[in-house]
């Protein structure tokens, strides 16, 4: 590689201390993710996937090791600086959507821009564009409880996109969605990858992971395998064919 990787973890460990007990969530992870790469992180429950994502997302700091994001060492930064990096460089998508209730889709999408100090006009325009990008331009005024799970997750993706981040981190984004909606969401992520946004996604489901171009498997706080391969193209199917498509999988 002639280009510096966007994400570079060097022997990162994370140890939680609960009283006298030490929990080693990460036991030395080294990982590089290139710009525009679409990576799926898999592994058994408790293997440290979410811990890894929290560190990648600058929500948490490693106990030891280095983390370089876009060439900048961030493992030692303070709370304020990390908040700024989260705002500018990273977009989060959560399993449980985490939309603000009784707040319109548009305003949910605007939220990160509020903390970026954008003006009202700019905010509305960018949020609307972001909603259009996920195919929900006509739902801007809807509240989360007026939308399906898939739509809510797309609003959440629009929110993650709105600051034009370098990385989107998604911890089990399809965990609460049925298989058809999951494919829709994966198609969206693939599109982002093509537009140069780096996507790292945690999943338990192999048929979700197959849409990624790289699969990192975790086990007991370490990377057990790291495979790059051709990704399957996610093509949302009409409802009737979704079940058939699922059975056709290897």
């Amino acid at each position, binding site marked *: 590689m002639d280009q510096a990787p966007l994400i570079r973890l060097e022997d990162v460990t994370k140890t939680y201390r609960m009283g006298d007990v030490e929990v080693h969530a990460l036991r030395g992870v080294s990982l590089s993710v290139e710009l525009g790469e679409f990576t799926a992180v898999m592994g058994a429950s408790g293997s440290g996937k979410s811990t890894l994502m929290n560190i990648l997302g600058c929500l948490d700091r490693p106990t030891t090791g280095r983390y370089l994001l876009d060439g900048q060492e961030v493992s030692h930064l303070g709370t304020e600086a990390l908040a700024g990096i989260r705002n500018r460089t990273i977009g989060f998508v959560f399993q449980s959507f985490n939309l603000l209730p009784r707040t319109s889709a548009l305003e949910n999408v605007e939220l*990160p821009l509020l903390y970026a100090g954008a003006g009202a006009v700019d905010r509305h325009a960018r949020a609307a564009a972001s909603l259009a990008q996920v195919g929900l331009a006509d739902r801007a005024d809807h509240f989360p409880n007026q939308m399906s799970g898939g739509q809510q997750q797309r609003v959440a993706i629009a929110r993650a996109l709105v600051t034009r981040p370098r990385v989107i981190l998604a911890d089990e984004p399809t965990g609460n969605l049925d298989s058809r909606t999951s494919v829709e969401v994966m198609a969206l992520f693939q599109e982002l990858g093509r537009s140069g946004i780096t996507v790292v996604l945690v999943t338990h489901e192999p048929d979700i992971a197959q849409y990624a171009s790289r699969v990192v498997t975790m086990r007991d706080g370490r990377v057990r395998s790291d495979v790059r391969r051709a990704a399957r193209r996610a093509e949302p199917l009409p409802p009737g064919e979704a079940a058939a498509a699922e059975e056709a999988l290897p």
Partner: protein
Amino acid sequence: MSWFQTLRVALRALLRNKMRSFLTTLGIVIGVSAVIAMVAIGDGAKARVEAQFSAMGSNLLMVLPGTTTAGGAHGGFGSMPTLTWDDLRAIQTEIPTVRYAAPSLRATAQVLSEDQNWTTTVIGTTPDYFDIRSWPIAAGSLFTSVDVDGATKVAVLGQTVVDKLFGPNANPVGQVIRVKNVPFTVVGSLSKKGQSQWGMDFDDCVIVPVSTFRQKIQGGLGNYLGGIIMVSATGPSTVSRTESLVRGLLRDRHRLPPGTDDDFSIRNLAEIASASQEGTRTLTTLLAAIAAVSLLVGGIGIMNIMLVSVTERTREIGLRMAVGAKPGDIRLQFLVEALALAVAGGLIGVGLGLGAARWMASSFGWQVLYRPDVIFIAVGFSGLVGVGFGFYPAHRASRLDPITALRFE
């Protein structure tokens, strides 16, 4: 995040729980409205007393003949004339802090116009009297020292007398009235002064030159002044000094040996007025205490609700942090929320308080006075309470760990 945005987010959060927000502010609403209403009424009462006293005259001392008993009641006023015309002149000329001194001789008499009659108080005095009582003229002119010297038969009428003899708003100047069958030409009428604190009508009087009064209305007492002396000091600060100077002068002139009682008495209106304000001051202190307690209770209520709100919205806080909110942003948001609650309570309280004062004013006929400074202070204090009691919950919110907060059930 901009201030405006922060405020908008805070107001939305509050409006989402309208009932809860309202109940939370109730403590502050009640406290502030009670204070605003009572201060408006208290100030109204105070202003009325002040107006009544200043209607009697500015920086006024009244020198009365006769002794006072130990209890302060005036013994035998008028029955024992002790003040002389020379005393009056001495007060006028020998005491530098006296601006004016005038005699005030009174008699009750029937006054007749062409077709009306009215029994009123006739006062004999000098032109200084009008200055002492700061009593502006309504029509015509006052009589002058020339009238006093020449004992001319001219009169100045109070408004009540004008009403009774010539009808409301009539101009009596040039008319002739008869007092004890003596014709007096009306040269002027005085503007309305209203009632004294004891219900006496200041405007129910006819004022004539003191010389004419002595010749035509009430026979003289020789050297003795058959009435009282009204003294106006040069300013509010010299009233007390003037009182003691007048006392010393009169004791000297009456050759009273030390240790004996005065054979006259001096009333200091400023002192009487301030004594009657004493009750108001106690009331104000009491009100401040009520305000403090109710604001404290209101503040604790706000703190309680803000803590509940922080817990309820833990996930929201986690999300906001994840998308880039700094701890300061979160703290400010909750602080502004607490502030908005408290200030809203304060404003509602002001509205209710003013409404209550107005209602009491119209149903009991009390005078009320709205003081903008009290309103600002009340709202300001509410805001302080909001910030003070909102700080801890806001600080707690800002210290949340985003990961834990996002996982919060």
